[in-house]
């Protein structure tokens, strides 16, 4: 065989060698990890999460078709209860709650995914640089991260959003600024431990520069945990965004937004539906991301992949 032969899928255990089959638990983790990553959603929670998320995706994509009424039109009697023409009732200005809920998915979902992708990329690039190059770069990046961690998330987001002024764009900037450090921390520690692992050192001894070993050897091994973190983080981004809207620092009225709708409904106890349904929307969608993220995390965790009886002997 020459180096140029087309690559075949990795064959498992049936080798010609008579040596005892592999029993290293960590190694098991890696193996199952590669096999199971796409299958990770086959756990009950992951499955439920995937279904809820797909429903929400459909709702967001087809919102204009699904929404029964114009979400901005104040066409109906104010504060009419659910049932009848307005399935989920109307708000204080006589707008259809259901239509507003459906249309709001179109802002929340893409904004949350967008902010998470941005902060994951920004955070993990900074973290990888800090972790691999160390010293001054590391100090500067991680001290800034520490400073962000010195505030509870929503508090700092509130401070930033207030300084920038209300609005979806500014809310996204605020959330981006507060959420990149967790990726930086995770990536940094992953890169640092990978940097010292023997296969990376062996590569360095073969003459790889730091940058080449970071890209070629380390990054594939760091990617999956970051993806898991990002999945879980979409949920918290949605929550933070809703929190900012609740504080009137997010999406500006009259654009429909779940957090702002709750804020509006909180003072209207007789009209419970105004606040109840948007909360339910937030809950289900955040739950979906958390369920999926949790299942992904489980499938990466060497502990859960470890089988009973593999650890001994």
């Amino acid at each position, binding site marked *: *065989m*020459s*180096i140029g032969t087309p*690559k*075949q899928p*990795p*064959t*498992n*255990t049936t*080798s*010609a*060698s008579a*040596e*005892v*089959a*592999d029993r*290293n638990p*960590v*190694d*098991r983790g*890696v*193996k199952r990890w*590669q096999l199971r990553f796409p299958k990770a959603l086959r756990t009950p929670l992951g499955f439920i999460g995937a279904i809820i998320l797909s429903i929400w995706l459909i709702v967001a994509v087809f919102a204009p078709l699904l929404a029964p009424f114009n979400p901005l039109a104040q066409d109906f009697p104010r504060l009419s209860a659910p049932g009848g023409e307005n399935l989920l009732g109307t708000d204080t200005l006589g707008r259809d709650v259901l239509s507003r809920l459906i249309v709001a998915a179109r802002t929340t979902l893409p904004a949350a995914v967008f902010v998470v992708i941005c902060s994951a990329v920004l955070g993990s690039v900074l973290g990888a640089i800090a972790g691999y*190059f160390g010293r001054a770069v590391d100090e500067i990046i991680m001290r800034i991260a520490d400073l962000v961690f010195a505030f509870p998330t929503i508090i700092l987001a509130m401070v930033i959003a207030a300084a920038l002024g209300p609005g979806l764009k500014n809310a996204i900037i605020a959330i981006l600024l507060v959420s990149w450090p967790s990726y930086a921390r995770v990536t940094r520690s992953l890169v640092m431990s990978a940097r010292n*692992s*023997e*296969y*990376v*050192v*062996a*590569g*360095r*001894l*073969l*003459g*790889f*520069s*730091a*940058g080449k070993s970071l890209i070629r*050897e380390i990054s*594939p*091994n760091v990617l999956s945990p970051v993806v898991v973190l990002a999945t879980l983080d979409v949920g918290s981004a949605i929550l933070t965004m809703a929190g900012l809207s609740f504080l009137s620092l997010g999406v500006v009225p009259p654009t429909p937004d779940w957090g702002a709708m709750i804020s509006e409904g909180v003072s209207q106890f007789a009209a419970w539906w105004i606040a109840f349904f948007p909360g339910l929307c937030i809950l289900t969608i955040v739950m979906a991301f958390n369920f999926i993220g949790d299942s992904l995390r489980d499938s990466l965790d060497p502990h859960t992949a470890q089988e009973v009886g593999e650890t001994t002997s």
Partner: protein
Amino acid sequence: MTTTTTTEDSPRASKDPLLELDNVSCEYKLNGGGRFRAVSNVSLQLGHSEVLGLVGESGCGKSTLAKLICGLEKTAGGTITFESHPVKPLGLGRRPKNLLGVQMVFQNPYASLNPRRRIRDQLTDALTLDPKHNWTVESLLEAVDLPVDAAQRFSHSFSGGQRQRIAIARALAAGPKVLVGDEPIASLDAFLQARIARMMRDLAIDSGASMIFISHDLSVVRDIADRVAVMEAGNIVEVGSTEQIWNDPQHPYTKKLLAAIPKVDGKGIIPG
């Protein structure tokens, strides 16, 4: 075995050492503050086509010494020269070309291969370094007794012994002049240890390289080394030919170490 009877410096080694450590020291920062002198004033020479066994117990500084030789650790004094090039600590850039002749095989077989890359790719990385093109991926795998189809696989489908052989193959592929084995057999079953150690020696010597073989197990080192250096608490306490160390140890620590090895004779005698 090619051993010379003179102690300290074999004539080959002193004439034109391939690798020379002169008064080398190394210190670590301790976690709670303070410093730990892991290696202190070590001088050693390695000749051409020679296997030097470096023996000592845990914490004696032998692994640190291996890292120093590869430029993976900073010296706190002294010089290391390989083929008259000074060994400098590895920074962010590529390792200097003239130092690529020093390669290492690590202790933990489960960490020494990249789990996300095929064996072929990892061997090819090393092959490109060797100007002489002595090896191909296939001939390397053959040399370490692995089936040729191993090249297409990922590390997880191999046992510890197999992985260690792949790691040896990768180090060899680079065409090293000095192969450093940092406890390469310590994580393996006792029954595999001697086999892998002998394989390392044969492959290194056959390819014209020298080897520094680090181990806590004197009986394995006796089997494969031409000379042995005994290390205790950061110092080299005795260097000599394998015969001399084994049959006529001078330093009390060497004697203690030898006396502690249990003999596989079925006599029921507890050593020491």
